């Protein structure tokens, strides 16, 4: 036992000192921050897109601007209500008029706040025909003019700082002196503006003469955003012309919204939160990590074995330890290396989701950090890492022991890869249907069990499935090591051409004594 520990210790230290190990340690934090930090930074550094509009109709631009202002007002009031409810320190920094009006609006439905905001922007203090409840109409009459005054004199930059999601942060309309086609085209090609719109002469009749000119073909957000507001303005104008009550029109167009619910463990209906969706898909990310770590770590064992053989150090070792002590020490040493690796990943995941967003001034990602301490996810990940490693290590160490150079061993990898690619390909379908037929069948095939059962953690599978697949996996691991150990003790002393598969199978089948086999005395 002492010798096994010594071998394991050396393996551990030797691996921990390699650059590859530290790349592995850094791999996950880099990946994680790429997911959390990069979009945040991108969002912050992306400047507002500047655009110009040439209005041939004479009225639509103004109407669209009003629709945009209404949307921004709605956004600002919505944010204020949110702060009033949960972020009092930020709320008290808002202007007095907003602080006064917000508590009164907090009682309304979000869509009603939108109607209120549009009425303020349109300077409609009576709110007739808007369908707002009487208290809201009173609020509109009392505070509407002050709100409008405040909003219309607020410079876009300040509004953008105060409320992160108002349109001024994303799109900014600029006035251009020369509205000739040639001048505008030049501005676009010089990059002075992102795009420009031309509104046709009679948008009420049709789209004739309306166009959107930009050199960026992939980012269509601006076209969609401005286009929707302009279309809304056109629709409102058409309703007025046809004397259709806007409230009736809204009612006609109102879709049915389906409340999405799930059943709890006790069979009760429950609201679905964002956390639930994430929990459904999180296993997929874990499968990916599991796959990478099992593969990388068992490959480490193979490379080490080949290196010991090609270094000719193996026989010196065998004069001090038996081949089985050597094998056990190597498995243990690499397993602890691997656990250090995935342990560091999990720690980073746990701490990172808790503290990194805070450090960057964003709210902590509660849903992510809840995932990081979810016992089923983390428990399955660690358990299936160990089981998966043990199974694949047995195969790879056998391959390593019969090869003399690392490239010999690499040549045999595609065969193993062919098997390992299957759980990766099945990852998405299983994520969608964690308890479906494919998932069930694959979880009973031992080489796939760790990945597929991890994948199904969202289900989660029933207890008997856990027990049955784990037992089957453990039996396979024992068989793999029984065979692997036989191959290992012959293979490591073998030089020259790597043996054929048929020969290796003969070693495995051969009874004790017919091959270089030790009998315990």
């Amino acid at each position, binding site marked *: 036992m002492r010798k096994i520990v010594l071998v394991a210790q050396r393996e551990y230290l030797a691996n921990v000192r390699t650059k590859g190990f530290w790349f592995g340690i850094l791999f996950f934090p880099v990946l994680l921050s790429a997911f959390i930090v990069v979009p945040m930074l991108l969002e912050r550094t992306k400047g507002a897109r500047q655009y110009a509009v040439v209005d041939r109709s004479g009225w639509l631009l103004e109407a669209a601007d009003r629709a945009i202002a209404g949307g921004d007002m709605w956004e600002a009031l919505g944010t204020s209500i949110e702060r009033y409810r949960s972020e009092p320190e930020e709320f008290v920094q808002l202007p007095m008029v907003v602080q006064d009006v917000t508590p009164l609006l907090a009682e309304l439905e979000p869509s009603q706040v939108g109607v209120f905001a549009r009425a303020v922007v349109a300077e409609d203090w009576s709110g007739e025909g808007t369908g707002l409840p009487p208290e809201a109409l009173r609020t509109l009459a009392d505070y509407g003019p002050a709100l409008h005054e405040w909003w219309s004199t607020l410079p876009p930059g300040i509004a953008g700082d105060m409320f992160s999601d108002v349109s001024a942060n994303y799109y900014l309309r600029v006035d251009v002196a020369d509205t000739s086609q040639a001048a505008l085209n030049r501005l676009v090609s010089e990059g002075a503006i992102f795009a420009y719109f031309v509104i046709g002469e009679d948008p009420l009749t049709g789209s004739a003469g309306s166009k959107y000119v930009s050199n960026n073909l992939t980012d269509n957000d601006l076209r969609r955003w401005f286009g929707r507001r302009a279309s809304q303005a056109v629709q409102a104008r058409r309703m007025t012309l046809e004397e259709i009550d806007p409230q009736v029109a809204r009612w006609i167009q109102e879709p049915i919204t389906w409340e999405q619910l799930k059943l709890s463990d006790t069979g009760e209906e429950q609201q679905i939160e964002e956390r639930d969706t994430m929990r459904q898909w999180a296993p997929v990310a874990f499968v990916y990590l599991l796959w990478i770590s099992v593969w990388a770590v068992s490959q480490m064992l193979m490379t080490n074995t080949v290196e010991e053989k090609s270094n000719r150090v193996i026989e*010196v*070792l*065998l*004069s*001090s330890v038996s081949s089985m002590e050597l094998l056990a020490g190597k498995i243990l040493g690499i397993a602890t290396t691997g656990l250090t690796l995935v342990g560091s990943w999990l720690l980073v995941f746990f701490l990172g989701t808790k503290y990194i967003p805070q450090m960057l001034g964003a709210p902590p990602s509660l849903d992510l950090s809840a995932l990081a301490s979810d016992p089923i996810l983390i428990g399955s990940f660690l358990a299936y890492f160990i089981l998966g490693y043990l199974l694949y290590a047995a195969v790879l160490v056998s391959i390593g022991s019969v090869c003399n150079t690392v490239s010999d061993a690499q040549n045999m990898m595609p065969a193993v890869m062919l098997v390992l690619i299957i759980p990766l390909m099945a990852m998405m379908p299983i994520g969608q249907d964690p308890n479906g037929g494919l998932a069930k069948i694959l979880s009973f095939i031992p080489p796939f069990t760790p990945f597929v059962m991890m994948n199904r953690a969202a289900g989660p599978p029933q207890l008997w499935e856990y027990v049955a697949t784990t037992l089957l996996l453990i039996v396979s691991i024992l068989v793999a090591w029984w065979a692997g150990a036989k191959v290992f003790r012959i293979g490591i002393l073998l030089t020259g051409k790597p043996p054929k598969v048929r020969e290796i199978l003969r070693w495995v089948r051969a009874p004790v004594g017919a091959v270089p086999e030790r009998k315990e005395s």
Partner: protein
Amino acid sequence: MEHALTLDGITKRFGDVVAVNDVSLRVPQGCIYGFLGPNGAGKTTTIRIIMSIFYPDAGQISVLGSPNPEAVKDRLGYLPEEKGLYKKMKTGELVAYFGKLKGLPGGVATERAESLLVEFGLGDWIDKKTEALSKGMGQKVQILSTLIHEPELVILDEPFAGLDPVNVQVVRDMILEMKRQGRTVIFSTHVMEQAEQICDYIFLINKGHKVLDGTLAEARASGDKAVVIDYEGDGSILRRLPGVRHVSDAGKTAEIFLAEGTNPQDILAQLVGKLQIRRFDMREPSLHEVFIRAVGGDNDA
């Protein structure tokens, strides 16, 4: 305990090949024992059996008085024919690691590794990775690794292979020093001159069978006496001399085996004037001759 090692009828098969066939051997304590034989004769397999890397299919073995070589593994030192080092390990750590594997406590192993390396002029390399060592230095480090736990029986498989004359001398001195300290040394080689210089006993194996074993003198006596000459000139004449049974000619030195009843003086008389003779000596055959005769003698005679 009289013998460091006894083998009794040891046989080892690999599939249909019999690598070692019914070999018996006694190695007294405190001697230097040479294992000789051509490539593939069974030397390494015999050594691996002694080191309990292989178990014999038949026969009895006793190493340092124990019938189970595995139990005394920590008292043996072994330098295999295929030797190597962990390239990324520091030299000091590596030697200490092999000491610890042989049961030395960590502190003692580190201390002894460092003092050994300093003693053999490798003090500057203690904290360097082994990949920085030259071949000769690497070989020294390997030998030190087999000695760090002060083994009672040391087995060196081809310890001189690939060394320059200076390092050959260093390794030879190390072997002689081990003997002085009372350790038993078994080493294998196929360079007869080296065996002749330092062995007390030799064991000659061919195709898995023991050909002979005993003291160096006994081995030599097993062959006929020969005339040894150092000469300049065309040596082909030697084979045509009357009364000569067999000639082993190395170009400037030749061993001449005489037929029954031939007088060595007649040979000398015949050579005078034809070759320039610098030495003319009557003595026992060299180990080289014994080896050639035992292994491939039939083709040569």
